[in-house]
């Protein structure tokens, strides 16, 4: 089991190193294959661990393995430790599994791009980082993976580094994530300070001894980290910009895996959040706000990838909501299904973009269904899953979240309402996108620029992953039906079992489930219908509402605000310091002192008149003065 975990972790790293060191000695295609293979090996390793876990009782499903002490200071030790438990294995499976598909897809997608090898090295590096994040056996390693995924995300967003917008987006993503890292680190400082350890088990065991303030601080820090990573309000502005990266990157990092790490973090650190109910509530609230805001903004986006990006934010909002109310299994469930259908959507979008030579503006698209029937099917599957239409996977997972919210009662009901509104919005923007891209007659742009890949919609390396994901997006939700059967929850038991009695309720009843399912299904269908009316059948006009539209198009003015509040002042302060402190004061003081000393020296030199009478006078005066002093001191 440990071996599987280590293989899982190290294979992508080896792949990345191999590609880096081999340089131009291997072909571009070989680099792609190495990368895919290494991620596939990682998947294999994860599977091994998974099957090893399956055979065990709930209480024996956690095993940790330490290679060496990574960091220490006196009593404090943080090992290079992998923790293999259902949660980490589930995540590892998703990461490496989806990762394999997407890296394989990249072989086709990136074909002909410059510096393909670098791309595949980065992809492998990302998978390694993500696996480190999920497998890391203590908070420090988790944070290490946390930072490294941000790094790989930076590298991949800015992959086309000659495009200034890509570079800017990459920097933005990294810096905002760094905020999260900093908050995360602060939480860990509190933990170290109070408990002396960063091991999950040790730290959680010591929670009882901590003051509630401390626990709240820890939870708050972790939440801030999670919010930044998962692009939740208020640290979300980087994600839409991150769509500057190649589409498979968006699929893997900014949809399926990395951005969901925040959810993983909350689930992983659930004892902390359980001990800090206020912060948990905050997490859920942020999720709710985000899912609404993102859903609204997505309505007016014109860039196909940005729509999917906002939908990602929105879906992660659901997961936060779930995690915040303690429905960890539901959160993880949605995480998994979301990985499938969102990757599917991105990859399908990628095929579209690929076919349209990089065009991402939906207003230029239309009628593509005629040229790309298979892609349209894939897109439909993804859209239906996203809009939570049974029996597609999204339905089950979203339903279980909403049902849990209902089961929570009180605050949960408010969340439920938000979630339901979100469902409606999801359906609207998803199908708006679908209809704009595939519906109607081919637009002039499409007719002019569409080019088929050897008569097919894409190369095999692209279509096969899409197909696989399509299947998963359909059936992925069947492994758990809220209130009916719950193998996933059972599997995750060792994670969720710890404090079950503290939780109000995390397993909704069948009734609640059915009620919620009915309402949400109705809302989804209503949304789809509305979208159809507005953008397919065009029976109705989109309401003008200029102010609202502008607000949404300005993404609720977050970017503007951050620029004014943080970036511009920082730049102004830095410039001012440079101009008014550094150069004149710090640097100038030395010159001033030196100049002053030289000036004094010049004065002394002037006294040296060259006249011996002066010299004798100095002696006489000196002697007289000395005598005077001596006599008066007598």
């Amino acid at each position, binding site marked *: 089991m440990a071996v599987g975990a280590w293989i899982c972790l190290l294979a992508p790293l080896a792949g990345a190193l191999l590609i880096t060191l081999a340089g131009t000695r291997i072909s571009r295609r070989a680099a792609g294959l190495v990368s895919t293979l290494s991620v596939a090996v990682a998947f294999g390793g994860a599977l091994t661990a998974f099957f090893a876990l399956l055979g065990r009782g709930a209480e024996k499903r956690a095993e940790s393995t330490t290679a060496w002490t990574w960091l220490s200071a006196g009593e404090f030790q943080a090992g290079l430790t992998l923790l293999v438990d259902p949660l980490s294995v589930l995540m590892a499976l998703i990461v490496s599994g989806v990762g394999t598909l997407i890296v394989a897809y990249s072989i086709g997608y990136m074909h002909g791009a410059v510096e393909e090898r670098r791309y595949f090295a980065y992809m492998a590096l990302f998978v390694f980082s993500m696996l480190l994040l999920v497998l890391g056996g203590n908070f420090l390693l988790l944070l290490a993976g946390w930072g490294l995924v941000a790094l790989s995300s930076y590298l991949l967003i800015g992959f086309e580094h000659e495009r200034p917008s890509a570079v800017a987006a990459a920097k933005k993503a990294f810096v905002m994530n760094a905020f999260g890292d900093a908050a995360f680190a602060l939480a860990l400082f509190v933990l170290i300070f109070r408990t002396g350890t960063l091991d999950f088990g040790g730290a959680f065991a010591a929670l009882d001894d901590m003051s509630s303030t401390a626990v709240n601080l820890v939870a708050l820090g972790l939440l801030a980290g999670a919010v930044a990573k998962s692009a939740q309000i208020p640290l979300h502005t980087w994600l839409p910009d991150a769509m500057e990266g190649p589409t498979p990157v968006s699929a893997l990092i900014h949809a399926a895996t990395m951005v969901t790490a925040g959810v993983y973090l909350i689930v992983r650190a659930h004892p902390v959040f359980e001990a800090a109910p206020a912060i948990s509530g905050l997490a859920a609230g942020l999720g709710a706000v985000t899912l609404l805001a993102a859903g609204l903004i997505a309505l007016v986006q014109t860039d196909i990838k940005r729509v999917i990006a906002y939908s990602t934010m929105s879906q992660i909002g659901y997961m936060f909501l779930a995690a915040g109310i303690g429905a960890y299994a539901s959160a993880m469930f949605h995480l998994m299904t979301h990985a499938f259908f969102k990757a599917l959507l991105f990859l399908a979008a990628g095929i579209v973009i690929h076919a349209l030579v990089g065009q991402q503006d939906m207003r230029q698209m239309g009628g593509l269904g005629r040229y790309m029937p298979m892609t349209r099917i894939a897109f439909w599957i993804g859209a239906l899953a996203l809009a939570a239409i049974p029996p597609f996977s999204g339905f089950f997972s979203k339903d279980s979240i909403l049902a849990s919210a209902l089961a929570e009662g009180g605050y949960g009901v408010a969340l439920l309402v938000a979630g339901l509104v979100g469902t409606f919005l999801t359906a609207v923007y998803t199908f708006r996108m679908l209809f704009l891209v595939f519906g109607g007659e081919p637009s002039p742009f499409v007719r002019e620029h569409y080019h088929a890949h050897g008569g097919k919609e894409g190369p095999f390396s692209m279509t096969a992953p899409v197909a696989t994901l399509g299947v998963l997006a359909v059936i992925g939700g069947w492994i758990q039906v809220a209130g009916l059967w719950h193998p996933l929850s059972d599997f995750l038991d060792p994670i969720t079992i710890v404090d079950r009695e503290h939780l109000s309720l995390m397993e909704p009843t069948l009734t609640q489930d059915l009620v919620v399912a009915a309402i949400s299904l109705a809302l989804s269908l209503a949304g789809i219908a509305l979208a159809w009316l507005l953008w397919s059948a065009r029976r109705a006009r989109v309401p003008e509402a200029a102010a609202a539209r502008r607000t949404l198009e300005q993404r609720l003015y977050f970017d503007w605000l951050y620029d004014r509040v943080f970036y511009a002042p920082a730049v102004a302060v830095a410039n001012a310091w440079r101009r008014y402190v550094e150069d004149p004061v710090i640097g100038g003081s030395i010159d001033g002192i030196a100049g002053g000393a030289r000036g004094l020296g010049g004065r002394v030199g002037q006294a040296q008149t060259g006249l011996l*009478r002066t010299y004798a006078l100095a002696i006489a*005066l000196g002697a007289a003065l000395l005598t005077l002093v001596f006599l008066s001191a007598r």
Partner: protein
Amino acid sequence: MDVGNILVWAIWVGAAIFCLGSAVAVVSFANPFFSALALIANLASLAVLYLLLSAEFVAAAQVLVYAGAVVVMFLFVIAYLGGEADAPWAGGPTWQAVAASVAAGALLLEVVMVIVLAAGDRLTDPADIRGAFGSPGEVGRLFLTDHLLAFEITAVVLLVAAVGGVILGAHSRRAEQDEVALGEPR
């Protein structure tokens, strides 16, 4: 107060006035030649004071060696160079002159103060002295016993000065010859 005492006082007063007057003259005359002459007068008056202080040998040496030899050497040089006159107090007081007066005045005041402080104390009652005090024989004895080293070294200093004078003189001769050889107008 007996006659001898009054006489000595009178001599002292005369010598003192003469001494100080000539000293002022030394520093005041514009022409160095007159200054040198004034110095002779000063040295002579000092010799009188030395005599009053029972320093016969020193007084004699003062007149013979100092006034007779040293100052005469001065006079030769001045005559040779045709001493240029400078007006010491012309052109109003410079800061240098003011400061110099202050310095000299301060030194004078301080020393006088010291003397006054000591005068009421240790300087009132001079030691009794034997007849030999200040005689050449006594001086000679001291130079060969207690102050042998000083005596020898005085000789060395004079020797060094003589050698130095010779070198410097030779210097100026050479310099003159060079210039003559170069045909520069004198």
